[in-house]
Each structure stands twice: as C-alpha cells, then as structure tokens.
C-alpha cells in the first residue's frame, strides 16, 4: 500500500490563531460590560460600529490583495483591533471618527504592511493616535459617569448622539461631558493645586476615578484569566505595571502633592487594559522573553513620563507605538542563550 508523505511532526497542533484571538475577545467582555455600565450604550454602539468597519476594511483589503477571505476574516484579529479601538475612544464619539480611525488602522497600519503578522505597529493604537491628533475636540468628549447614571440616555438617544451629533432636548455637550481623572490631575497640577485637594472632587473614588477604577478591575480580571490560560505571557503586563508602579511610587514618595500615587496610576486610564490587552499584541511586541520584559518596562516608563510631563493626560498609545519602533533592536540584543553555548551565538 502506498501513502502520501509529509514532514514531521505528525501530531496535530493544539492551538490556532482564531482560538487565541477568541480568548482575548472573551477576556475583554467583563471590562467592556463594566464600561457600558458606567458610560452607557455608547460603548456597545462604538464596539459594534468599530468591529463592523474593521471587518469591512479587512474584507476589502483581502479582496484588493487577492487573498482568500475565509481563513483571514475568521481569524478574529480584525474584530479584536476594532474592539480595542472602540474601548480607547470616548463613548459618544461621532461615527465618522470611528470610521476614519478603524479604517486607517486596518488599511494603512495593517494591510499596507502585509496584513496579519507583518504590521510593525499595533493597528488599533495607530488608528487611535490618528484620530487623537486629527480630531482633538471629539477625543475629549469623555462623559461623567455620575451624570450618565443620572440621565440614563436610552439606546435611541445614544444612537442619535453618535450618528447625528444631536443630544436629547435640553441637554448640551458641556452638561454631560467631563474631564477624565487623569486630565483633572494634569490640569490641576499644572495650576499648582495640591493633589490631595484635586482628589476631593466627587470624580475621584478609592483607587482612581469613580467608575474608572471598577472598569480597570474588570479588565484586570480578564487579563488574569488570559495569563492563567497562557494566552499571553506574564512578562509584558508585569514589567509594564511594575515599572509604572516603581516610577510613580518613587516620585509620589518624594512629593505626594505633585505626583499622583501608584494606585491612582494603575487604576486610571488605560493602564490595565494596555498592560494585558494592548501592549501584549504579539505581532507588534517583542518576542524574546527578556525582550518582552524590556518592552513592557519601556511602555510603563513612557506612560508615566507622558502622563506626568507630557502634553497628553494619557500616554499609553504613544508609549506602545514608540516601543513598537524599538522591537527589532530589542529582539536583536535579547536573544536567549542557546542550549550548550556560553552566550548567544557562541560555542560553549
């Protein structure tokens, strides 16, 4: 009897790209649900819109590039990129901002570089930075969780806000939007107000801002689940949050009235989301174990620097992109010692 031959190994692999991406998406659900709870339907509408745009762009680009639709459209990487973008923008972001951001992410940052696996920069963060720089006003439309809870905007009202820019009778944008806790700290410190005084405002909770701290905790839960399932490695989240804690702790000990506490840094903004879901994007992050520690530490340090002395209240997207740029260099210098050799590339 004759058989077809194949190269070893002859055991079916245990993992697949869409299972990896699928688990990441699953882990995003608690945090996304918490965000919806505090900021209203806008979060869900943004996620749905961004995912739809991402899939449409993915399909379009695959067609233009003459690539098969099936394995790529179902690998869930486009869904993940769209979802992460939607979590980064304010809950009532106008629809066209999402369109531009996600479109840029998928077309320019992903497919023009060769598609899945070939993009040197995190597509969701590229898209976010593009809209952050291009439409600064729209990007500051963060809502106040307490006001939203009081108003309880209905689904149709939220739809109208996002797609037509109109708010229900008697409401103005000024009434419902509010600076984020990170913004407040940055502005306050800029005005030489002591942090203890800034934090007496009702926008601040136990760890970070009201609502924000809980959202972070739910994202943390998802992230820990990913760690436990070994979908992501521990190096990047630990190095990033560790460095952020260390740096902010150091400055906080020096002067707690000018520098916010480590707890505040960790549980505000996108620190947790970034550490577990964004900086860990395997394609654009470092791949060596040591390299991932350096990559994570770099993101953490840059986040602290930008938040404390930079022009933006949150610096995660910039930090990730800047470190993406460093990846080839990091990977080159952090090759592990090969078994039986004294150092990388040298005979033992």
């Amino acid at each position, binding site marked *: 009897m*004759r058989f077809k031959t194949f190269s*070893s190994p*002859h*055991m079916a*692999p245990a993992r697949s790209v869409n299972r990896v991406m699928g688990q990441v998406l699953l882990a995003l659900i608690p945090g996304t649900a918490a965000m919806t709870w505090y900021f209203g339907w806008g979060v869900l509408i943004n996620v749905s819109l961004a995912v739809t745009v991402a899939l449409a762009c993915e399909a379009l680009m695959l067609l233009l590039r003459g690539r098969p639709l099936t394995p790529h459209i179902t690998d869930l990487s486009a869904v993940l990129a769209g979802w992460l973008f939607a979590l980064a923008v304010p809950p009532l972001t106008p629809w066209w901002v999402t369109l531009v951001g996600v479109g840029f992410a998928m077309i320019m940052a992903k497919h023009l570089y060769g598609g899945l*696996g070939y993009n040197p920069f995190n597509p969701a963060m590229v898209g976010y930075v593009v809209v952050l720089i291009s439409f600064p006003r729209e990007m500051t439309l963060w809502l106040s969780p307490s006001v939203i809870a009081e108003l309880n905007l209905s689904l149709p009202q939220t739809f109208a806000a996002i797609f037509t820019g109109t708010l229900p009778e008697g409401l103005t944008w000024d009434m419902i939007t509010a600076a984020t806790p990170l913004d407040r700290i940055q502005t306050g410190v800029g005005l030489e107000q002591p942090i203890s005084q800034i934090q007496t405002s009702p926008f601040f909770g136990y760890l970070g801002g009201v609502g924000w701290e809980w959202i972070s905790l739910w994202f943390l839960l998802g992230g820990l689940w990913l760690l436990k399932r070994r979908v992501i490695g521990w190096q990047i989240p630990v190095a990033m949050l560790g460095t952020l804690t260390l740096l902010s702790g150091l400055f906080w000990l020096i002067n707690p009235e000018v520098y916010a506490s480590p707890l505040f840094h960790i549980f505000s903004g996108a620190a947790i989301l970034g550490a577990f879901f964004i900086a860990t994007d395997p394609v654009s992050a470092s791949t060596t174990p040591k390299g991932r520690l350096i990559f994570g530490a770099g993101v953490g340090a840059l986040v602290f620097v930008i938040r404390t002395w930079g022009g933006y209240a949150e610096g995660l997207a910039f930090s990730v992109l800047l470190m993406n740029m460093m990846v080839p260099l990091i990977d080159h210098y952090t090759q592990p010692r090969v*078994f*039986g050799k004294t150092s990388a590339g040298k005979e033992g």
Partner: protein
Amino acid sequence: MTATPHKLWQFHGGVQLPEHKAESTTEPVAAAPLPRQLILPLRQHIGEAATPVVKRGERVKKGQIIARSDTYVGAHLHAPTSGRIALVGDQPVPHPSGLSAPCIVIEVDGEDDWGDSRMPPIEDYRNIDPVKLRNRVRDAGIVGMGGAAFPAAVKLNPRPHQKIDTLVINGAECEPYITCDDMLMRTQAEAVIAGMHLVRRALKPERCLIGIEDNKPEAIRAMTEALGSEAQDNIRIVSIPSIYPTGGERQLVRVLTGREVPSEGLPADVGVVCHNVGTLAAIYRAVVLGEPLISRLVTVTGSGVHRPRNLQVYLGTPVADLIALAGGYTDDVERLIMGGPMMGFALASDAVPIIKGGNCIIAARAADVERPGPVMPCIRCGECVKTCPASLLPQQLYWFSRARDFEKAQEYSLFDCIECGCCAHVCPSNIPLVQYYRFAKNEIWSQERERRQAEAAKQRHELRRERLQREEREKAERMKRKQATTQQTATTATTAHTGEDPKQAVIRAALARAQARKAEQAGENNNENR
C-alpha cells in the same frame, strides 16, 4: 532502594503531549513469524554503508555476516535467518526521501539454521575484558536502538582525554505512541541490567543513572526488581517527569546530571556516555548468547491499525507484514510513519523493511495527523520560543529560512535545532516550522558541498596549470641545454679542426634529410599552386 532521592534538573521548554501509549501495551509482546523474504539495506545509520560479502544465489546461515563495515563508525550486517541471497541491489528503503538504495534480499528457507555462525557465548561475562567486549559489540553489528542507530562500539571506547564518570541509561521513551522500550524493560529487565553491567566494565563510570519517564510505572518496577540489591547511590533508577523531548540525549543528560552538552560536542565532553535500554539488551544478547543484532522490538500502533501491539521482529521484515500482524489497516488510514509522531518520518510505501533503528510503526488516521486549519502568517506569539528545548528563537529561524537568509539563520544557531517538532506542535498559525529548518539546513549543506566542489575544481585547475607550466619550463630548459651542448660541440669542432664525431655526423645527416624533405615539399606546393 536508594537512600537519598536523586536531584533532577530541568531543560528549557518542551511540551506535554497526549501519550497514546496504552493502546499498544495491553497485549503481550509476540514474536513476528519469519517472512518469505528479508530486505536488509546496506546503510542503516550515519557513516559508510556496509560492503556486501555475499553473492546472489549464495546460501547463508543465520547470524552469518553478509555485509561488512570496517570503518570506525560502521556496523556489520548479519543474516537474520538462514536462506539464499535472492538479490544484491537497489530496493525501496525506509528513508524520508522515499528513494531506493542498495540492499541484500534473503529468500528465507524457513529452517532458521545457525550453522556455525553463532558467536561463542561468553559465560563469565561479568569479568569480561573491555577490549573483548568492544570487539564483540562490533562483531555483533550493534547500533543505538533508540532510533539514531549510531554504532554502539564507538560509545564503549572513550578517547583517552575523556574521563567518563557517568553512564546514563535512556529508558525515557518520551515520544507518544512508542512503547517498545517500555515493553522491553517490563519483559527483559534482567537483560537490560546485565547489559548495563557489561557497559560499566568498558567505561568504568563512577555512577550509573537509568532515566525512565514517570508514565511507565511498570517498567520502573520491573527494572527496580531486576537491579535488586545492586541499587546503590551510584547505580540508580530515576523516575523523570514526562515532558517531551526529555528522552533526547542532551535533554536527558541535563535532567539527570545538570550538565549541558556543548553545542557542537558530545556527552563524553562533559563526562557522560548515554546508551538506550534496547542497546543494552542487544549487548547482553551478543555477549552472553552470542547473538548478533538480527531482530528487535517494534511497536506497531496508531488508530490506523486494528490491533496495536509490540512485536519481536526479524530485521528486514517488510512493514506490511507487521501491519498484518497488528490486525491490518482500518479503512480510513491516512499516513504511515516510521519512528515517533514528533520526529519520525512518513513512509511512502509499506513494502520497506524494518531496520536496526526502526523502533515504531504508526498507522495514523487523518484526524490524528492533519493540521486543523490552513497555514496562517506567523503572529509572533512566541509559543515556539517557550517550548524550544534548545532555547532557540524558532520564529526568527522561520523568518530567515523563508527569506533564504541562511547566513542569518546560522547566526541564530539553526544547527542547534534538533528537529523535535515542539515549535510546530504549539504553533497557532499551523506553520510546518521543522520543514523550513530542514530546508534551510539542506540548502546550507548543498551550498557548502558546491563550495567545496568548486574549490576542488579550482585546485585541480591550478594544479594542472602549474603542471603545464612546469612541463613547458622543463622543455625549455631541456632545449636550452641541448642547444648549449650542440653549440659547444660545434665550437669545439671548429676550434680543434678535428674530424666529425659520430654524434655530430648523425645530427648533420638528420638535418640534411630534413632539408631535403622541406625542399621536396616546397616543390610539391609550387606544383600545386600552379
């Protein structure tokens, strides 16, 4: 038992695989009957192929040497049974290439007659002289039975500067499906232990560590029993965690001794020699029973056969016969593999024979072997980095191999890859990584070969040019010398006014003849022109 537990070390990476070992261990080991024909490839391991010493039509006895290998890294080939040589020529052999190679085919006469070919049994084997032992192992054609089939006598002969303090016995059998070492230890533990004592005579190690994966409790029990009261701190059976590829030589040495075999070195460089349990049993049989290596235990398993089991098989038995003994193929059999599922190679046909290193035959169904999805781009997830037992960066090696950047691939230690397949097994993108590394290695080897050939050709060319120049020079010198002597004689002749010497006369005569011929030719030419 031993007093203190043995300290275990770890190697980087590795994977936990579904074992699939229980399928083939439920039935006792059976002896496969003699087939009609035995096919014995002349090359069964690295190094030179053996040279046939029998001719077509010749009758051979069981145990008779039919092909010799007198190089250091070589092993003789013996007739597994008595019969007539049917053919000395090319036959399909079990090799990844699927090509044919020189073989000796024996038509079995069914008498299984030793004649006087059996080597004399050595009764007092416990006091055997190391040189005698090595010669016996050589004469018996024994090679490593774990799959690599490296001639065993070489590993009983450490170089003078190498102090061997540890003998590692490999009973790990870490690849899924394979159970022949397990069954061997269960059923022939005494032979293995006796073989170990023989090897100890040759190497004189301070300690002896028998590593068996903890998924083989019965083998561990049988071996412990066979070792009996001889178990001491310096001879011990060590149960090791079942992590693939812990049975790889370098990995096992690391786990048991904590030593790292240098990248381009051998275990002997760190004072260790490693033998497989099957090799030890073969050594025992050669010394105590006088039997050369003519049969081996083979696991025939997989979901593609009806009755997975272990068989004692005459070398040269066609795989198809073993499949029949294992209940035949299932209807949906898809792939036939020699060796384990991780490092074995797929056979193109079941007409090929079992060779010395052939420990396992797997008949697999599509669901066991097929990639679950299409090959996707590498997403740099780094799972392969986590599992690589050589601490390489498989994703980078893949990248360089794909880009044919072989220099860079070598810089990233491509040749430290043992092709264990861990990276490909964990790859979420389904990339056949090992295939890329094999491709890159082969390309580098063939480039190297071409370079060497080109160099040899260049050398030949230069030598030829030099030779021609030398000849030219010598000719010129000869001419000069001759001229000089002629002139001298001429001068002497004119100055001395003596009569012509005979030599001079001959030359003059020849010159005259030549001139005459020239004149004649010139005349003819003139005639023609007219």
